[in-house]
């Protein structure tokens, strides 16, 4: 039997790695990938909680997290493509000046 607290530690580690990636990387695509890591860490902890309490509800929450991640990725990638088309760059240092 897997110790559940270790699963929570793994989920926390993954979340911290994703947070670090968002703070450190400057490529928009890699920032989106780091968001994916964080979402996955959250859904891993949902599934660990489901296994801890013997309920299926946690797995359903993980399912919803997945749907939201899919929607988020579609819009994020569209924005990244648009940025690349307009400015020719996806580096956050080069897209400092926004209008409006």
């Amino acid at each position, binding site marked *: *039997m897997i110790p559940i607290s270790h699963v929570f530690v793994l989920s926390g580690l993954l979340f911290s790695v994703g947070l670090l990636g968002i703070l450190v990387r*400057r490529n928009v695509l890699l920032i*989106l990938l780091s968001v*994916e890591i964080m979402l996955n860490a959250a859904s*891993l902890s949902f599934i660990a909680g489901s296994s801890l309490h013997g309920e299926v509800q946690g797995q359903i929450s993980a399912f*919803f997290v997945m749907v939201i991640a899919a929607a988020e990725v579609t819009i994020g*990638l569209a924005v990244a493509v648009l940025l690349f088309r307009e400015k020719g760059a996806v580096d956050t240092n080069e897209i400092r000046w926004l209008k409006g």
Partner: protein
Amino acid sequence: METFLFYFFSAVALIGATFVITVSRPIRALLALIAAMFALAVIYILLGAAFVAMVHLIVYAGAVLVLFLFVIMLQGIGARDIPARARFAGGFLALSTFVGTSFFAGLIFILGTVPLPPAKGVEGPVETIGSLLFQNYLLPFELTSILLLLGVFAAIALAKKDEP
């Protein structure tokens, strides 16, 4: 055996995630993330969530990350090597590492103060998940379909070239 598999695949997932935030080419970061996703799916199965693991593989490794792959390979967004100096935001790295590690330490501290009951373990048969999803969680389920529809609209509206 189960425990060994868990530790092995959690190591794979962690190494993959670390590669994502350190490697120089976006395409390699993406492939490392796909490896991490597969490892996570194995961990889901070990935790008794076989259905979620399969959906995870189909949606993430099959759809989301392939979408990323298309964007990187077809549009050429950041397909070049990024030199290490441009990869990380200089002196900002120390501050970010501090934020990341202190966040992790906080999580571990919270986890240490809460006593966990012994795990009951769960089998997540598809029948149970399906009936819960279409009975108790019908409204959120329908709302997610509206969310996905709006995502499609937004993506089309954003990516469409302006007509003259």
